[in-house]
């Protein structure tokens, strides 16, 4: 295993992807892109799960990632439906325009 990949690299990669997801959420204006950023974050988490699964030699991490996928899929369905209704009502996908309630 001398020339294997250090496990921390995977974890750091995951952290980077997670942060990029957060960045997308914070900086993007298109609602859909924002939503995709969330998917990115979930993917990053999945990578962590699977990395740990490898390290712990357990199948559980894989399962968790699988559950996350299902959740992500369900979220996608509902989320996109919500985005559709917003678009129908406001005719915009700019997230900054959806801010009528404040104070």
């Amino acid at each position, binding site marked *: 295993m001398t020339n294997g990949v250090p496990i921390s690299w995977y974890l750091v990669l995951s952290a980077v992807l997670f942060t990029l997801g957060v960045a997308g959420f914070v900086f993007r204006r298109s609602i859909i892109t924002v939503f995709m950023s969330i998917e990115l974050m979930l993917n990053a988490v999945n990578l962590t799960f699977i990395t740990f699964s490898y390290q712990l030699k357990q199948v559980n991490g894989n399962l968790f990632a699988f*559950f996350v996928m299902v959740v992500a899929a369900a979220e996608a369905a509902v989320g996109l439906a919500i985005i559709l209704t917003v678009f129908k009502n406001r005719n915009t996908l700019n997230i900054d325009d*959806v801010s*009528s309630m404040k*104070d």
Partner: protein
Amino acid sequence: MPINYSFSGVDTLRFLPEIILTIAATLLMVLDPLIKKRSSSAFGNIAILAFIAAIVASIQGYGNPGTAFGGMLIVDGFGTFFRILVMVVGILTVLASYRFLNVQDAETGEFHSLLLFSVAGQCIMVTANELIVIFIGLEISSIASYVLAGYLRDDKRNNESALKYFLLGSFATAFFLYGIALIYGATGTVDLTAVRAAQAGANAPNPLFIGIAAALMFVGLAFKVSVAPFQVWAPDVYQGAPTPVSAFLSAGPKAAAFAIFLRIFMTAFEPIGQGWEPLVWIAALLSMTIGNFAALLQSDMKRMLAYSSIAHAGYVLVAMTARTDIGEAAAMFYLAAYAFMNIGAFAVVTHLSGKGERYTSIDDFSGLAQKQPLTAAMLTIFLLSLIGVPLTGGFFGKFYIFKAALESHLVWLTVLGLLNSAVAAYYYLRILVVMYMKEPSEAAANAEPLSPGLGAALILPAAATLFLGIFPGWVLDFAGRSATFLK
């Protein structure tokens, strides 16, 4: 790998409430096209029946407490308490929404179906003893709630509410999930009891790692219970959502989220309690302060109640800061009392808001006492309870919380918290002022008589609020006995 696993009837029995709710939800969905719209409140009736059946099942289940599905679920007093609580919240929400849905021309089976699913998710959360199950339960509850928040999809405010709730909720959930992943990495398990046990052994992981994981989970949970600085979403979402849904959101999911918050932090993260106590301390103070002070200037009733719910979340955190069984019992009691008074208050808003929810500003409550004294009296009870006047549940809730805090020598937090509640009195009093001391507004003058459903949604919480205020012992005893987790 041999299959050494099987589940028994006991497991099913302990999972029965969720099963009932799921079946009912599915049934409603199926029935939706079959039942003639607007002709009856059959959907609601079925939902209520299902809730009652599930409550009965929960009580039955508690008769034989224990774990199920290999420790994934745990039917203990704590779980049962919250199970019943969220189901009662469900019932009250249904009661409050009969007339609402009718007025908005939006009676469908899906509404109730989603509600049942959401409650089922909460039931799963509060009885789960394993992070992944908690996560899935949370998502079930949340996703259903997102949809409910945007239920009147032609209403701009509903859309916005749903979108904000959904995007920010998913965002926070991602943090929560990341936390789970790190916990898994650190301890090799996601079972709460095992996580706790793993921290005690000889090759225990660095508490720092547990701490980081706890921090990430804290973000997700604090978001769900709308604790500062993660509270920003709550006012917008509560204001925008259909009023009965706001009532539901502020009571059910919140209580369930608090349940898992308590369970996770008091079991899995109890060994690093010294570490997170200051964090909760600050969050509690911030929530109380931000919630109360921001509420001072609100003119919209729903929004004001949203801020108030932030403040009340802060009070519950005070109990959590105590890190004792008494504290947990106090938090449980408080959440129950809070659920009743808050749903009641929202129910009054529902009653008055009218078609398209035109009347939700505080001024619309002007003179309500002269037009509808009973409604006003009920709202008075809820508001006094929210203030924390004796003989109401809210008072005893606060009392127990601060008692627990003082026992843990959190004198300053107690003093600041109670002073906060004096500030809070101001904005609740404003509503009493307009209701009793001003001339009737257009909204109050045109308010229709209380429908039976809404009436029940007012009287039941009012009675419960008073009951908790006068005879708190019954609930508190139960909470006290249930506050010890499987460790």
